[in-house]
């Protein structure tokens, strides 16, 4: 009898440095050409399972491993790395972590070169992989200058040249704009259709469902909670834990008869005085460099909940770095509470505007989460009593209570990201600016802190959120804009191409697609029901409007 590509039986693993089991008694089997979606919250054990499958556990990550993981009947831990690498091709969450060469061609050829294959064979494999993913035009480009989507495709091409029969994709959509994510998903589907076994570990479940995975494996606290077909998902999976398509959520809420209980609405804040003003702002990094911002005019007012959408590499982060004073305009000016940022230090601006950077490792340094959170308020001269309150409330807001004494750098990526959000939250700035706040976060966690920051949960005010005058977040997650923003900025072609209420900006599907934003089922349902609702709402809240 033919051995299955992957057989996992009672797999249990505990990291040497952590007291709890990372995965416990995990068992499943995969067939040739099957596409399995693995989902679950941050720290649920998805990445550990992936490491057991690609052999990084126990080779690179030490700990106690028990149970079986077999590739075509052979114990994974007994396989040599070259053999392993030709069976399981791994695409890591962040393509930046995967790319080792400085140019695209070298990067794609890296694996076959390591196997010592003949020149002609390597060239043939590289050409095939580039053609397969339509990236021939990137052949001579430097890898660090590629956009997020391009990097992901190059990393995937590098995996494909190893000719693996199993593809392990660890949150491959995390850093991609919606259009790039869609393209990547289509590529995964067609690889499965061609007979490769595909394991897709992904938070963006709704996106992943577009390509109709054969099964879903849902994990909680290191254990399998659900393993089965996607047709049963609306009833089997808690929609507050995993983001499901809006019609499924509506169906589930109706089935459970929780219509009133789950209803939420936006904070319908009145727009107040201007806090940050961009006046005719141009920016470039040097005289010989191209313009990144051109003639940007923008006013952020009290009460704004702004979502900034746009393609990878469009200049969205550059825009917000002007607001915090990290970059100064080459033409025009940026005013924070009426003062030109050229005349203010970044520390002075930080009292008004708190900025959460994209990568947590660039911020975290302290031995404990509590000390990390105290850092900002101390710099701003808070009293010890205020620091204590701020830290405590911030921890609760981002669901990190109980992790107070953990070293931040020892937490999972999602928890680290929440620590950085809490660290800025504790500073009680008037404006909260977040760059991709949901990257690497599971749905339940980001819903929790976004609810708190954008104050969408009626009646639950805190000392932190009450202090906020405005929130701005850069995101690729269109549903985040639909659910939490009262204003949407679409950024592209170096300037703001659309600025207005979500219902006004997001109804123009043609323009969204032009700037690589793909409409979602939640947006569509909101547009369909807008005559009844009068505003954009989360899926649960739409239930009562669906007949």
């Amino acid at each position, binding site marked *: 009898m033919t051995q299955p590509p992957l057989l996992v039986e009672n797999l249990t693993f505990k990291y040497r440095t952590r007291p709890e089991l990372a995965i416990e008694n995990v068992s499943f089997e995969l067939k040739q050409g099957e596409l399995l979606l693995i989902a679950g919250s941050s720290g649920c054990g998805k990445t550990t399972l992936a490491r057991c499958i690609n052999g*990084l556990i126990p*080779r*690179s990550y030490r700990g106690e491993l028990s149970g079986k993981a077999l590739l075509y009947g052979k114990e994974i831990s007994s396989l040599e*790395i*070259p053999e*392993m*690498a030709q069976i399981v091709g*791994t695409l*890591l969450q962040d393509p*930046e*972590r*995967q*790319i*080792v*060469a*400085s*140019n695209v*061609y*070298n990067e794609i*050829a*890296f*694996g*076959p*070169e*390591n*196997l*010592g*294959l003949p*020149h002609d064979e*390597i*060239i043939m494999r590289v050409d095939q992989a580039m053609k397969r993913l339509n990236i021939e035009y990137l052949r001579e480009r*430097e*890898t*660090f200058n590629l956009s997020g989507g391009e990097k992901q495709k190059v990393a995937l091409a590098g*995996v494909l040249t*190893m000719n693996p029969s199993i593809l392990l994709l660890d949150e491959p959509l995390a850093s991609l704009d919606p259009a790039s994510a869609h393209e990547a998903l289509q590529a995964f589907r067609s690889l499965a259709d061609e007979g490769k076994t595909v394991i897709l570990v992904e938070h963006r479940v709704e996106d992943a469902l577009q390509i109709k995975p054969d099964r879903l494996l849902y994990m909680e606290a290191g254990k399998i909670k659900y393993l089965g077909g996607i047709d049963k998902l609306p009833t089997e999976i808690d929609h507050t834990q995993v983001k499901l398509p809006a019609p499924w959520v509506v169906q589930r809420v109706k089935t459970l008869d929780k219509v009133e209980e789950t209803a939420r609405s936006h904070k319908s804040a009145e727009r107040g005085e201007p806090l940050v003003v961009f006046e005719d702002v141009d920016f470039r990094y*040097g005289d*010989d460099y191209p313009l990144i911002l051109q003639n940007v005019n923008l006013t952020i007012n009290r009460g704004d909940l702004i979502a900034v959408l746009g393609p990878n590499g469009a200049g969205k982060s550059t825009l917000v*770095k002007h607001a*915090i004073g*990290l970059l100064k305009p080459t033409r025009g000016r940026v005013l924070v509470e009426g003062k030109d940022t050229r005349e203010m*230090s*970044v*520390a002075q601006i*930080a*009292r008004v505007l*708190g*900025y959460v*950077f994209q990568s947590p*490792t*660039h*911020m*975290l*340094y302290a031995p404990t989460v509590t000390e990390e959170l105290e*850092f*900002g308020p101390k*710099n701003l001269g808070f009293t010890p009593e205020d620091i204590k309150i701020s830290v405590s409330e911030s921890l609760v807001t981002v669901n990190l209570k109980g992790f107070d004494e953990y070293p931040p*750098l020892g937490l999972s990526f999602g928890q680290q990201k929440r620590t950085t959000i809490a660290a*800025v939250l504790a*500073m009680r700035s008037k404006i909260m600016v977040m760059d991709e706040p949901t990257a690497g976060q599971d749905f339940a966690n980001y819903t929790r802190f976004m609810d708190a920051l954008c104050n969408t949960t009626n009646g639950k005010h805190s000392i932190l959120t009450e202090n906020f005058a405005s929130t701005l977040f850069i995101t690729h997650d269109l549903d985040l804009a639909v659910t939490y923003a009262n204003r949407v900025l679409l950024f592209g072609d170096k300037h703001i191409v659309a600025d207005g209420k979500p219902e006004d900006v997001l109804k123009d599907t043609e323009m969204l697609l032009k700037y690589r934003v793909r409409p979602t089922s939640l947006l569509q349902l909101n547009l369909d029901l807008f005559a009844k609702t009068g505003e954009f709402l989360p899926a649960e809240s739409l239930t009562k409007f669906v007949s």
Partner: protein
Amino acid sequence: MLVTWKYRPRNTFIQRLDPRTRLIFMFSIILALTVPEIWDFRIILPLFFLSLTLYLMARIEWKDVRRVWIFIFILVIFIVGLNGLLSGRGGPSSVTNLPSPVLFNVPIKIPFTDIGWDVPITVSKTWFALTQITRMFTMTLLAIPIPYTIDPNIYGTAFRRMGASDKVSFTMDLAFRFLPTFARDFIITMDAQRARGYEIEKLNGGIPERLRKLAPFIIPVVMQSTVTGEEVIDAMDLRAFGTAPRTWLKQLTYALRDYFILGLGFAIFVACCVLKWGFGFGGYFVPEFFSNWILGL
């Protein structure tokens, strides 16, 4: 992810050279000056002008290398030069052993104590400092253009074709990209902490206290470097690096100009060795014109 130096293709003689030629020639000059311990300005000065000519032929824009040169100037003039001037060490013993007229004394005093002494600045030490600076610039003029003018894609291949193992060659490839990556992380971390109200320019207290206060800045930079290192190792493991003799796709071939430059480098090295060890020419001495000039000031 590792980033690269600001390399850009320029249609210059220097960039048309094989990267191995560039590296071997640079090492030839460094070895020619250091192995036979050349301190004679009559040898150093022509080599300095040769390096300067090659540097100018690389046609690197000043704005690209301005920061690097500022760093090198500080290092060479203030550290190497000042050390040579004050202590006279770091070179031949004759600098301090030979009797030499004292130009003036520099009083040195340990802060908060009465302990102090005078450091004599002699003619010999002064000439030594100038020689040392010229010698260092002769070497750095050859080294600085390398990251800006050698295609980052062929670092590894160049070392492999020079006889290094696969692992050493790829390590060199990664090492070349480490510094610009470190610089990028440095800037991002600085920005991230400034956005949390941290002002590095306002650090106060003693040295231990200042070092402690630098932790929010130093730890993320070090951690980021460590994490990047681990990520690179994982990514290389997952694609079977180091498990078999590697195929290097890029091919390098020497042209006539390479043989000329390699020959020149080799000739300089041999000439320096022969002059020093065969004829005793090339050691340290203070030229008469310099003594006369400085004492006549």
